[in-house]
């Protein structure tokens, strides 16, 4: 059974070692054609009509509010400049202190901005890595897989906690493996330990949220704490996977996480949250406060698990995925324990 377009078998040949083309050096992960943007541009823009298009025109409310805000900030700015210039004009210690403080403020601001920018860059690099990996998985071939893995290796390089895993993966990069095996190996050796660590982070955050919700006197305090704790958790998780974002980066991550939950919510709800509601119901009979705490804790752990899913450079190939139910069960146990202990 031969096909006409089959290539005829090629003849054997010898080459001198000088002829060997070096393996193409791995440059920084090149973003693929940008899967997200291409999806948006897939439909010709002219064919789609959005609410925004219909409502185009002057929005007087918007103008009013922007003008008022501008005026207010102008006033504050004027007041501040007057205060600063007055302070600086004084040639005594007050002036110098004011000058020093302002320098510090400027430096700190610069630092924060730089850090946020760096954080965004790291997240972007992680996203590029994800596209690279996704492409390698979608079209399994040894070349693209090698490329993805070596991008992954350089992404994690220098991490002391992963030194062993890095060495182990490097050991095998030159081996002949089945398609997909190298990525599985990287998943097992590099990401599984990180998964364990992020599981601990999630559990800790969930516990904190649950406890604070259960004991806080006012709902607003609890809500504020939940917010702060969740952002902190996102940052920690992103940092674990090598994406260390700033606060804004973490907020963007939070947006991604929420988006992901909304997109996949239906399925995950039945899978993960059913047990939580049941458990929570039992808990609520014991104490309303504890029930609320457990609910917030469960929500936090769910957010954490999704955050891992969103930020993890590889899908779960060889490592066991983090399960909300499992984390929640541990949380539930520890809450029941503390309840029995009379807290």
């Amino acid at each position: 059974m031969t096909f006409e377009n089959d290539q005829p078998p090629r003849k054997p040949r010898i080459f001198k070692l000088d002829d060997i083309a070096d393996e193409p050096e791995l440059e920084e992960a090149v973003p693929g054609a940008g899967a997200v943007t291409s999806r948006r541009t897939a439909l010709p823009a002219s064919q789609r009509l959005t609410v925004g298009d219909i409502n185009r025109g002057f929005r007087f409310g918007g103008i009013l509010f922007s003008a008022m805000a501008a005026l207010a900030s102008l006033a504050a700015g004027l007041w501040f400049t007057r205060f600063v210039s007055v302070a600086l004009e004084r040639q005594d210690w007050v002036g110098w202190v004011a000058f020093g403080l302002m320098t510090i403020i400027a430096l700190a601001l610069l630092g924060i901005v730089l850090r946020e920018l760096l954080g965004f860059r790291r997240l972007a690099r992680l996203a590029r890595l994800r596209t690279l990996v996704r492409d390698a998985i979608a079209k399994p071939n040894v070349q693209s897989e090698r490329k993805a893995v070596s991008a992954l290796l350089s992404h994690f390089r220098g991490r002391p906690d992963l030194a062993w895993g890095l060495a182990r993966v490097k050991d095998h990069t030159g081996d002949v493996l089945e398609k997909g095996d190298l990525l599985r190996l990287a998943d097992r050796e590099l990401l599984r330990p990180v998964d364990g660590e992020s599981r601990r982070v999630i559990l800790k955050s969930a516990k904190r949220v649950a406890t604070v919700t259960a004991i806080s006197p006012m709902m607003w305090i609890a809500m504020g704490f939940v917010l702060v704790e969740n952002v902190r958790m996102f940052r920690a998780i992103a940092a674990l996977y090598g994406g260390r974002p700033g606060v804004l980066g973490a907020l963007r991550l939070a947006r991604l996480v929420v988006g992901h939950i909304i997109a996949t919510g239906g399925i995950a709800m039945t899978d993960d949250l059913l047990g939580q509601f049941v458990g929570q119901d039992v808990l609520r009979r014991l104490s309303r406060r504890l029930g609320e705490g457990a609910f917030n804790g469960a929500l936090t752990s769910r957010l954490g698990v999704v955050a891992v899913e969103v930020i993890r450079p590889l899908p779960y190939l060889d490592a066991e995925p983090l399960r909300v139910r499992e984390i929640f069960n541990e949380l539930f146990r520890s809450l029941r324990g503390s309840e029995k202990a009379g807290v």
Partner: protein
Amino acid sequence: MADTSYSDLLKDAQARFADYLTPSVRLGVTGLSRAGKTVFITALVRNLVAGGRLPFFAPDAERRIIRAYLEPQPDDSIPRFDYEAHLADLLSAPPVWPESTKRISQLRVTIEYRSAYLLKRAIGLSKLHLDIVDYPGEWLIDLPLLEQDYRAFSNEALKLASAPSRAEFAKPFFAFLAGTDPAAAEDEHIAMTGAKLFTDYLRATRDSGAQSTLAPGRFLLPGDLEGSPLLTFFPMPLASEARLPRGSLAAMMARRFESYKQSVVKPFFNDHFARLDRQIVLVDVLTALHRGAEAMGDLDRAMTDILSAFRPGANSWLSVFLSRKIDRVLFAATKADHLPASSHDRLEALLKEIVDDAAKRAETEGAGVHSLALSALRATREATVKHSGEILPCLRGTPIKGEKIGNVTFDGATEAAIFPGDLPADPAAALDAARHAKAASLELVRFAPPKLLDTLPDGKPAAFPHIRLDRALDFLISDYLA
């Protein structure tokens, strides 16, 4: 103190109990000569003992293997596989392929592991004896003899020998038979002459490559039985029902045939083959393809014969043993390192085509069957060469002295990058072509073993590079290490 002595006693008892319970798995390694059995076992043991290079051998990947080490030979009657000598060959400078062995040998590797099951851990089951039994594939050809008597054997052998394609080689033997009367008085000299002529015929048939490999296998591969009376018999034309007269040549032949069965075939079957738990059959598909139609036919028939030993057919009482014992058979195309990785799929397809029938039979008997392309010791590295706009997957390695491609002959010292050509895409057509074509369908250059320079902290050589040895191990023994 009574307490400590009691607990010591208890501990001791537990250890003894666990030792007693320690399971052993017998892994049969077979294949025709030069298929790579010796290198396979050496590399396998080295990899198990040194560790760290078996990423897809599940127990190792899960970090459950604590250590593996060689233990003294459990069976006093079987020679030990000379692991150290073969290892030394591979590690010498320049490295050489170890010499092939022509007899049965065995090696025990003990693997200490942590079971994934709580119960097993509680009992203290944490060891597995892996007994690797290496035996020549040619011996398997003898197993069907167990069901034949001398008369049946003679009839079949003579019928085969008089087939037109074989008659030429058998001419001297037939001439000898014509001048010999089965009813004549027994005579050692006649027996020896006949046996020699019969062996010559078998050998000529095999060397021509055009004929089936024939029983009795030890005539071709006598090992330490060379010159023994056990191998001094030959088939004779016998009248169908007549009793063999006492003291006649025919009676002597029949006696020897029975002894051959009793002291060669049966012990092998009872002591070795029937006790195996797992089996790996190494097949050198590449060399056969390289050497062309005759070698291919040879391999084909030899494999059919060998594999029929694994056929628990309707008329075979082997099935009783087989269905109970060997429950996993792995067919492996060796020397995969002589092809670039992109061709391994095709090599596997070829192997599947060759062992297809046997694999199906074994599968219906309930044995797990798997086939893959492997290289126990990787002698080459992958490279790509851009040549007139084409990117060719190449192999870097040192070809053995005297190997040729086109009009270039290698001196055994220089490294070269070689593109070995493509394997055909369609295995069935390729095998068909290889069986009939006069020219070789694949140019294959044999490579010298790699220089194994990596050492472990203790100064011993690190685990060897390989291709899919871990997958083979995983299929063969990982369930024992659960």
